[in-house]
């Protein structure tokens, strides 16, 4: 079994004032190896919490998560993480950042260098190895973050809004890169996003999540990620099938939004 599974995961944050927030309730799924799952939902629906539980940074208050049948109890190299921004080590050069994992694990220098050079070429940053990370643009920094994560050859890559801080054009390019890496490496990927279009385009599985308590509201199996590897991206994103799914999900999110607003007695 090479699956990433969640069994009735619940997470309740206790607040200092004595109250509590139910960030996740009864979240269960079974993600086969090599799938790319996108998590979509309004902020506060527990996406980051779920990723942190899968990464092993947080222990759920109920239920459990496991990888390949082994329960996840802490951070591990089998699960790499890509953050939105600011998680690179600004005191290290691009190549030292990418080689950080192998370095920590005592991989021989020559071998690390080869891994780093190959990955930099893969993410389109060949020749940028000795640059300082703060000299790079936001998009390039995220390429470094992806390469750094891949250098350790994890089974699963968890990404928390990795493209959230990028401009539209860079974002579209990076989506292509993520699909390419997914295809070439066969990694299992979970990617959190705010963008409906991104969730549809990148996910061959998609969970729409809802808040209070955080939960999976609806699941989709999608064809676009595989098609995106070869098809013209703009054509794909403007195809009737894509637009139909997009509108369906948007209206679902609007419904959820109205429910929340209604229950709080707020007016737009």
């Amino acid at each position: 079994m090479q699956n990433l599974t969640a069994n009735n995961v619940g997470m309740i944050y206790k607040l200092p004032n004595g109250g509590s927030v139910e960030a996740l309730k009864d979240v269960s799924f079974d993600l086969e190896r090599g799938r790319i799952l996108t998590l979509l939902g309004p902020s506060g629906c527990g996406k980051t919490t779920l990723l942190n539980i899968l990464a092993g940074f947080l222990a759920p208050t109920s239920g459990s998560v496991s990888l390949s049948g082994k329960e996840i109890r802490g951070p591990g190299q089998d699960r790499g993480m890509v953050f939105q921004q600011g998680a690179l080590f600004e005191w290290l050069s691009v190549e030292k950042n990418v080689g950080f994992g192998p370095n920590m694990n005592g991989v021989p220098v020559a071998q690390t260098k080869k891994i780093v050079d190959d990955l930099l070429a893969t993410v389109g940053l060949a020749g940028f190895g000795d640059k300082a990370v703060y000299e790079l643009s936001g998009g390039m920094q995220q390429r470094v973050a992806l390469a750094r994560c891949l250098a350790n050859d994890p089974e699963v890559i968890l990404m928390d809004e990795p493209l959230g801080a990028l401009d539209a054009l860079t974002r579209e390019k990076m989506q292509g890169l993520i699909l390419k890496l997914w295809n070439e490496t066969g990694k299992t990927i979970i990617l959190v996003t705010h963008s409906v279009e991104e969730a549809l385009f990148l996910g061959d599985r998609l969970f729409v999540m809802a808040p209070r308590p955080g939960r999976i509201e609806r699941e989709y199996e999608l064809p676009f990620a595989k098609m995106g590897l070869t098809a013209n991206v703009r054509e794909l994103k403007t195809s009737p099938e894509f637009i139909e799914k997009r509108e369906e999900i948007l209206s679902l999110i609007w419904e959820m939004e109205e429910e929340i607003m209604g229950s709080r007695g707020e007016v737009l």
Partner: protein
Amino acid sequence: MAENKTDTENTGANPILVMLGLAQVGTTERKTVTFGDASAITGSRFWSIVSVVVLIALWFVSAAFEWTDSTFLPSPQSTWAKFYEVFQEGYRNVSLWENIWSSLRRVLYGFGLGCLLGIPIGFAMGLSNTLRGIFDPIVEFFRPIPPLAFIPLFILWFGIGEQSKVLLLFFAAFWVMVIAARSGVLSVKLSKVRAAYSLGASKLQILTYVILPNALPEVFIGMRVALGVCWGTLVAAELIAAQEGLGQMIWVAQKFFLTEIVFFGIILIGVIGVIMDLLLRLLERWLIPWRGKG
């Protein structure tokens, strides 16, 4: 393209004016309002030069016209002459170098000890709840006490020798370094630490490869503050009890109305202070080029 270039050259400010800070360069040149715009207020070098020149000129003029008694305000010439004399022959059998060196040595010992002990303790406080709990009340209590308040106690305990001075300076530097190191550790972004854990780093590796470099900028700011505080405290400490040192020199000179020595002593103390800060700043630029780029 070529036309464009001459265009900017034509509108570009005179380089000499720019160097003097009388004309603005880059975007600032095109700003219509700069009042309240922090990025546009970089200080005009011209006016810095003017202010220094005026200050020195005022000193010359007031001495020349004897606006005040020369015992209170010696002329620049006589101050310089006295400086040269003391530089050549020393003062009361102590050479100027010995005075400077004994002051510097005390500061370096005290400051060095403060760093050596303060940084690890600050780190420990940033890494462990227990240690933070233990040290917090101590640090918070001692930090606001001016170091000079301890002079009587230290003299009582250790006499008026080097020990009590070095300990005093250690005291002045220690709390600053503890707090700088603590806040440096606590400033680390959680996502950096988590990324490192996911990449297989051990706790020790996280400390050495993530937390330590991340804390360096704040530790350096602490060092600059601590060195400044030490230097200031030292001179005051030497006023009270010392056989040699810059503070002692001006204190003794004052008793004999040798105002020239008092004057150049003060100037020397200021110059050395500025040089030490400059050296630390150079070291900082060389050691932590990523400062503020996180």
